[in-house]
Every structure is written in C-alpha cells, then in structure tokens.
C-alpha cells in the first residue's frame, strides 16, 4: 500500500465521521457520536501513518534528497487537515462535546477532498531555497496555529447560531428543543473559542518568527513586507486584538465570536488567497 491509497482511506474515515456527527445531531444518540469520534480517531491514526509513509517514500524516490512532507500546497493542505483533527480530538478529550465535531470535521473533510482532487500529489525534489530545516518548523507551527483558529471559528459559528435562540428561550437552555439542545452551553463555547485562540496565537507567533528566521538565512532579510508575510501579520493583529479585547475590555460572547470568524477568514486568505489572488515569494514549490 502506498501513501496515496492511505490518504484516500483517511478521506473516507473523515467522511464517515462527519456524516455520523450530523446523524448525531439528528438522532441524539450517544452511540452515533461514539462512532463519529472513533472514525475521526481512526482517520487521524491512518493520516499520521500516511504522512510518515509519504516521508519514507520521498527517500525512496529522491534518495538522499528525501524530506518531511511539508513542502508544497498538497502537502500543506494534508498537514493542515491533520492538525485540525488533532486539535479537535485533543479538545474533545477535555470538553466532551461531540456536537462541535459537526462543525469542525467539515473543514478537515473539505481540505482533504480538495487536496485529493485538485492538487498535485507528486513528490518532487526541492528547489534550493526550500532546503532548510526552518521550513519544517515554520510549516508545523503555522498549521497547528491555523488548525486551532479553524476550531475556534467552528465553535464561534455554533455560538452565533445558538445564542439568539437561547436568549429568546424561556427555561433551562440545556433543555432547548432540537439540535440546539445538543450544542454545548454558550458559556462553554465561548470558553472553547478563547482557549483555541490561546493555543493558536503563540503557534502563529512562532510560525511568523520561524518564517522570518528562514528568510534571514536564505536571503538576508527577516522581513520584506511581501504579501504572505504581511497577511500573516494582519492575522496576528486580529487575534492580538481579540485577546486584548477579551482580557481587558470583557469582549466575550457575540463580539468575540465574530472576531474569531473574521480572524479565520483572514487566516484562510493568508493561506490560500495570497497564493491564488496575490503574488509573492511563497509559491509553494511547483504546485
């Protein structure tokens, strides 16, 4: 079996997981949510294996020039989806709120499908500029950060869906009818939003710093205001504003949720939009 086949299995596992999470919202059955979480977990294990295998395959194809699978757009998307599921499952250990899965797994599944369908999965040798350990650190930290922001965004969307209805609902919110009753209490969602950003923000900070260190090694400038760098700074400012607004001005609830969604939209633009819409240094190798 090669990593390509394994990645297909991963996509299937995430698909099953997402469908099961939706089914859970409809059926309210605990065993369905177990199936959903379990398939996400199985998917993550397969995914980890597939990443390792692709790493190994790169040595078979390129000999001594093999490298960690973190160098082109395909590999970055596949690593991004891995990070999303990892962060989700870690958060799930703590909060045990399976309804969140229905809002986070779609990000992972769409990323996975997009990568399989549209992106070039070939293992190509690296141009000299990309041959640096900093690249590995840079990609890992950035995408763990992005994944945490994805999680925060998913929870914020749920929050905004629920809060309006909850305010109109008379009685105990945990007894709200329909899907909303399954959503975590709004207070908990607000907390998860904030905690996910607390993880994502230092990761993004590290991502920007490792990127700067790499640029300094390769070109002698740690910051040149190219569009990718600038957008990562924009994202950083948005989340820094989020943190300060929360710590010091008590921005919680709706405003925090909106800021988190805007932050993730900016994150996605930084990741994909800059490459597709704007031009710059980061062209992700040959893809």
């Amino acid at each position: 079996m090669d990593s390509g086949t394994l990645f297909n299995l991963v996509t299937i596992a995430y698909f099953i997981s997402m469908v099961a999470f939706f089914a859970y919202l409809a059926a309210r059955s605990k065993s369905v949510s177990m199936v959903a979480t379990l398939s996400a977990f199985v998917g993550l294990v397969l995914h980890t294996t597939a990443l390792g295998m692709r790493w190994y395959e790169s040595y078979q194809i390129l000999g001594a020039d093999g490298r960690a699978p973190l160098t082109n757009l395909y590999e970055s998307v596949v690593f991004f989806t891995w990070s999303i599921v990892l962060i989700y499952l870690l958060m799930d250990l703590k909060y045990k709120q399976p309804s969140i899965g229905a809002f986070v797994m779609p990000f992972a599944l769409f990323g996975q499908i997009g990568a399989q369908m549209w992106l070039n999965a070939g293992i190509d040798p690296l141009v000299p500029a990309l041959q640096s350990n900093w690249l590995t650190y840079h990609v890992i930290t950035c995408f763990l950060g992005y994944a945490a922001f994805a999680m925060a965004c998913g929870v914020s969307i749920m929050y905004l869906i629920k809060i309006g209805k909850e305010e109109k609902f008379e009685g105990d919110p945990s007894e709200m009818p329909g899907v909303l009753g399954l959503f975590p209490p709004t207070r908990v969602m607000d907390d998860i939003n904030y905690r996910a950003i607390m993880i994502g923000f230092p990761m993004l900070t590290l991502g920007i710093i490792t990127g700067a260190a790499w640029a300094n090694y390769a070109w002698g400038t740690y910051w040149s205001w190219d569009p990718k760098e600038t957008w990562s700074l924009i994202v950083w400012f948005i989340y820094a504003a989020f943190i300060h607004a929360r710590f010091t001005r008590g921005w919680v609830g709706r405003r925090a949720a909106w800021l988190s969604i805007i932050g993730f939209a900016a994150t996605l633009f930084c990741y994909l939009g800059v490459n597709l819409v704007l031009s710059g240094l980061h062209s992700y190798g040959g893809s």
Partner: protein
Amino acid sequence: MSEKNTSFTDQIWDFFCSLKLTIIIMLLLAITSIIGTVLQQNAPAAEYIQEYGQANYDLFVKLQFIDMYHSWWFIGLLGLFSVNLICCSIKNFPRVWKFVKEPQLVASPGILKNSANRAEYSVKEDAAQISRRLGDLLKKDFGKLTETEVDGKLYLFGQKGIYSRFGAYMTHLSILIVMAGAIIGNIFGYKAYVNVVEGTSTSQVWSRNGQVPIDLGFTVRCDNFDVSYYPNSRRPKDYNSDLVVLENGQEVLRKRIEVNDPLTYKGITFYQSSYGSAGNPFFKVRVTENATGKVMDLNARQREQIKLPGGYSFLISNFTQNDRQFGPAMQLQINTPDGKRGRPFAVWKKFPEFDIKRGGTFSFALIDYEEPQFTGLQVAKDPGVEIVWLGCFLMVFGSLTAFFFSHKRIWVCLETEGNKTKVQIAANAHRNQPGFSLAFDDLKQKLDATIENKSPVKEG
C-alpha cells in the same frame, strides 16, 4: 490655569494609556496593511499609470501608497502603537510590582467572605497545630506559607506563579525590542547585492535601493561557481560558490556557500541568490594540419581571430551548449591567405574525429570549453538582527507565561473561639478561574479529610 493644564495632560495621558486605543490601532494596522498587499509596492511609475491611470497614480503618490510600509502615516501608526504600549506598561506596572513587594499577607474580611473559592471549618485543635498541618497540605500548590499574627488571629498566606503576572509585560517589552532591533538594522545596516565573476574579486557591493556603491572594507573573491541538478532533470538542486575573504591581500576566510548557508565576516553576510553567464566562453581547440599531421592545441574566445600556419586564420563565430541533441558545438570560419572568408561549419565536442571528413586544409576538434559564470550574492549587514531574535524569544516566552500560567494565592485565617479554632480559607487565581475552581474543589476534599476528620461546618 495650572489645574486646567494638568487635566489636559491627564487627558492626553489617559488617551495614550487607553486599551481601546490599543485595540483600535491593532485593527487599523491590520486593515491598512492590506493596501500594500493588493497594490504592488515600489514598482516603476509607468506600471501604475498604465494600470490605474495618471490621476490615480498621483493620488497614490500623495497618500504614499507606492511604498506604504515606509509612509509617514504607517510609521506614525507604529509609533503610536509603541507609545501606547509604553504608557500602558508604565501605568500598570507599579500595580503588578506591588504584588511582589507587598504581598497581602493578611486577608481582609472581604476576601474571606466574598472569594469565589473559600471554605470554613471549626476544629478542636489549637491554631499552631492547624497551621503546621495546613502548611504541609498546601505546600505543593501554594509554596511555603507565611504566618502573621494580628489581633490575636493567626493569618497564613501562600502564593505561586507570581511571575506569570509579568508575562504580559515581557511580551510588550519584547515588541519594543523587536522594533528597536529593526530600527537599528535600518539605520546602521544595509541590504546590497553584488555579482562576482568566477576568478575575480570585489571590495564593493551595490545597495539594493538606489544602486549606490558601498565599500566592504575587505575583498571577496569567488574562486568557483557550480550549479548541480537533480538526476535526469533540469531542476537545480544547489548553487554553490567558493568564496574567499581577503584582507590586505591575505586570505582570512574561505567557505563554500549555498542557498540557505551564507558566509559571514565582520558582521556582513553573503547569501547565494542567483547566477548567470558572464559573457564569452573560453575554448580549447585542437587543430590538425592535414597535410603534415601537425597538431596544435590553441586557446580561443568567440569572435577572436586565431592565426594558423601558412597565412590562414580562423574564428569561432558561434557556440551553443546543445546542438540538436549532439551536445556542445561551435561554429567555425576559416580565412584563407588571400583574405577570403570561408563558409561556416560546425564542430561537435562529442565527435572529435568528425571534422577530418570535411577534407579541408585543417581539421578541428573541440577539446573543452569553459563558460565563465558570475555568482549573484545578496549582501546584508544587520547589526540589529540579534536584538530582533532576542525580542522574538522573549515574545514567545512572555506570551506563553501570560497565557498558560496564573498567579495563585491562598489566605487562611485561624481564630480561637473557646476550645475550638475557626478556620477560614479563601483562594484565587488571576487567570483561568474555572480551572482553578475545579482544582480548589479537589483541595477542599483533601482539607475535609485532613483538617476535619468529621464533616465541615459550612461549605464555601
């Protein structure tokens, strides 16, 4: 008059200390930064005029959008950001410092009554004994307890993680340090480039903006330049230059640099960035005089007339790296003694015997050629870069401290009431209150078990 003055300065001070301002500046920086990612920066004027028209271009110039990250308003925004940061820190720091200098050893009645996390017991034991036992129990979570006696009551106080209060200040300081490093680099450093032809040296480089020459103060020689390709591919794997640093003609440093592995000497760093052909290749040509079998090895450059015996001469009129799959080939022309120029013909390096078949007076073979290349070096001097890295380190360290650790405090008041001792406990954390509440509930169970083997009088 003077009172009005102070209130005015107070207003300014409050404005600069305001956190609303902080959030507004952060969002403004985020929004304005977008301009420079949409509008190409530092392109020639003609490009803007062609794409946006003259009127828009004039507007861009007026608003300094062409180089917006160095515009007065963007720099101004960054300046305001720093002033805001400094003022906020000056205003809030004394409050934090007080936690260190004057820890609140004695709990106020308010703390004991209103804390979210508290417990109360009544125990048949004397205060000293309870204090000892509490000291053992709480040591792990709150460090060594400090005892204070006031009005016949024994107060205990313990805390852990006070350093986390400084996390935010460290983070803020780190931002100023990064900015200071960037400013130092901009003022005392430069970004330049230079192209060095193999075998030559230079002691000057060219500034990247403005193309003014900069003296290095030493000499750099490039002995050799190589590109290596991946097997069966035109994709370059590495570019390498063998660089030698010379001071007063003496070799002081030698390094083979490649992309991602530069050479640094006296604070100036040379980065491999590009390469290219440096003009005329140099050929080794073997000429055989067919009549006599005499063999001559000659050196030639393109378009250079080379004399041959008997009044003949030849020149290399053209050269290609790859002629129809046959590899490198040169094109020759022979001049006869009466000055007539002959028809051009090709000689392939791969087939040294082939030219004999042409049946001329001389036959030619291309033994070897060398195409001199130049190595393109980015040159940077940045005395601020270490300061920037220091700032970055502090930023990560400081924000992790601020986010993930909290200052936890506990107060105990022991009051003798007849033959019993009333025990009041209150605790708080400056961050992550829900998590701390859970931990405190655990602690309370332990307290229940240790202090009171019986049930507690009142739950907190």
